[in-house]
């Protein structure tokens, strides 16, 4: 025991050698692990890039189509604020031009589209799909009145229209009359869909 103090420096040297050695191994191992992880990432990126380069021509065509669609959505006003005043005016204009008997509607407050309408929810990158639900009731002479009204409305307003439901039935069926001729009533649910930018 008395000689232990005489061995303190060799023992210290041994401890230092072990600590330094283990530290060197651990440090080098960490660097190798990091380099291996970086290598895996780079190889994955390289593979991905090669695949993208292989289909770059198709991707270019695809992107052009998408950009064209984006431009169309912007031009048609689907991307942007709701223009409710314009919508109401357009409905009145179409009703007058088509001499429709009765058109009643109720437009609910705007809300994000639900999963039932758009699986996956309303978010789409930097935009959000919003909707205002309209309950539309009309009295028709012929079912074409409804179809024509919807078609004209779809082309006239700055929104994407999605009809969820339409019920047409006879209000006073004349005996022996063919088809839906005569007084018809329709009740439709229509989503007025617009896209708005998400706030960061």
């Amino acid at each position, binding site marked *: 025991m008395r000689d232990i103090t005489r061995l303190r420096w060799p023992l210290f040297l041994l401890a230092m050698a072990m600590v330094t050695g283990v530290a060197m191994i651990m440090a080098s191992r960490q660097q190798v692990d990091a380099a291996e992880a970086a290598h895996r990432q780079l190889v994955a990126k390289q593979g991905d890039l090669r695949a993208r*380069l292989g289909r770059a021509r198709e991707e270019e065509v695809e992107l052009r189509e998408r950009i064209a669609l984006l431009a169309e959505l912007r031009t048609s006003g689907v991307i942007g604020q709701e223009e409710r005043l314009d919508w109401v005016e357009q409905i009145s204009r179409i009703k007058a031009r088509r001499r429709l008997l009765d058109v009643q509607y109720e437009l609910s407050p705007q809300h994000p589209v639900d999963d039932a309408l758009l699986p996956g929810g309303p978010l789409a990158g930097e935009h959000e799909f919003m909707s205002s639900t309209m309950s539309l009731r009309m009295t028709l002479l012929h079912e074409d009145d409804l179809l024509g009204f919807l078609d004209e409305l779809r082309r006239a307003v700055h929104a994407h229209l999605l009809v969820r439901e339409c019920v047409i039935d006879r209000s006073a069926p004349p005996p022996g009359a063919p088809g839906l001729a005569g007084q018809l009533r329709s009740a439709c649910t229509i989503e007025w869909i617009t896209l708005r930018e998400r706030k960061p």
Partner: protein
Amino acid sequence: MPARRLLFVNATRVTAYHWLPSGPKEEASFAANEPGLSAFRDYLRERSASLFYLLADLAEEGFQVDELPHVQGNDRRELIKRKLAQYYYGTPLSLALSLGRSKKGRRDEKFLFAGLLGVSQIEPWLQAMRETEARLAGIHSMPFVIAALVGKLPAATERILVISASSAGLRQSFFENGQLRFSRLTAMATDRSDLIATTCASEAGKIYQYLAGQRLISRDQPLQVLVLAHAGQRADLTRNLPDTPERQVQFADIGELARQQGLAEPPADARGDRFYLHLLMRQTPHQQFAPAEDRRFYRLWQARHALTIVSATVFGACLLLAGGQMLRLSELSDRNAQVRLDVETGQRRYDDLMRGLPPIDISRDSLRDLTDRYRVLARRSAGPEPLLRHLGHALDQAPRVELTRVDWRLDDGGAHDPRADAAQSQGATKGGSHALLDIQARLPAAMALDHRGQIEAVNAFTGLLSTGEIQVRVISRPFEQESGKAIRSSDATGEIEPPKFNLRVMQAL
């Protein structure tokens, strides 16, 4: 490796040598008095890093051969310790050398117990070494050094008396089967060959009588005597030490033996101090006389040396492992640089290809997400017109069918709308979007009693509505002919209701 130094101790002085691979080189000599001891201490202090090997060539030695029961471990140590204390009480400088186990009886183990009895001649030197903390590797005695040589001598026989000379005197060592059995030193003040030869003859005669008395040799056989002498003394020795009925004398040239052992400067005369010291370093005997306490600083040096070697080994091994890792790292870095360059080149090519696209203010991922989702929405936005137009065409070809109500709606596959679950139970496919058209219709009242006609009319209308993409399911018929349904007669009042039926039309979006 620290320097190794040899201390040749005889009765009158200590001579210090520095050992080199070519042989010992004399450095100093110290008389056995106070000035000599003082100089010896100074010598040791100046060479504190050296390892010291002490070779004692003293007359006061004891040799005893005895047998002990063969035991192991602590019992063996205790037995030997007790035996040494018994034979050499009063001296700590003793050792036991195993000569092997007996082949008879209980096969006891035979030992040679040897002790340096002239403690007073060595102790002052040992005390000086303790005071200066000199690293004493061991204390050896001359007979055991000569023993290492005997096995290599061509003249060695089963029993042989080896006569050697040193500055301490003339030593006679008796070996049996190459193992030391007995040795004695005769002080001799001269180096004259004729006197040495005379002394050899005289001492050989005494030894013969002693060995014969101890029954170590047979009286009817001559004792083999080997004299280690210098070549220049051989003539005198041959003349003065002839063969007799009691002895047969052979000579070995100490100069030639020294050369064989690698000593660069062979001894100039028969006194072979340097040769025996060289032999000690070349073939250091395992057994030595120093007690553990006197070897303490040598043991400490051994421990320090071992720890240093272990430290260096550990560090070296870690360095090797880390070096291996660094090589791997270097290789990986090179490969990563190549892959990175390839990725950058590829990215530039890709960017060049995409540079012709119109600029957009959102990311491409957002663009893909937005357009994909819009297309999903657009695919479901056709409205009721396609199915109603299809229904209109079918009605044109089925004039007897009159509609009372149509209910068109989107079905999202059943995840959210309870009505869709009901629709699936009635035929819609789960998991996809559909447009559903529920039709309530009737046939002319004139067909009220024509059940077969009703069935045919409904089937014909269903056939007109069905296409590859459009499926039609009959929900209810004007006349249920299945065995599981009830059938009733016409109204007793005589009023005839037009036959009614319900259909469900489905189109995948």
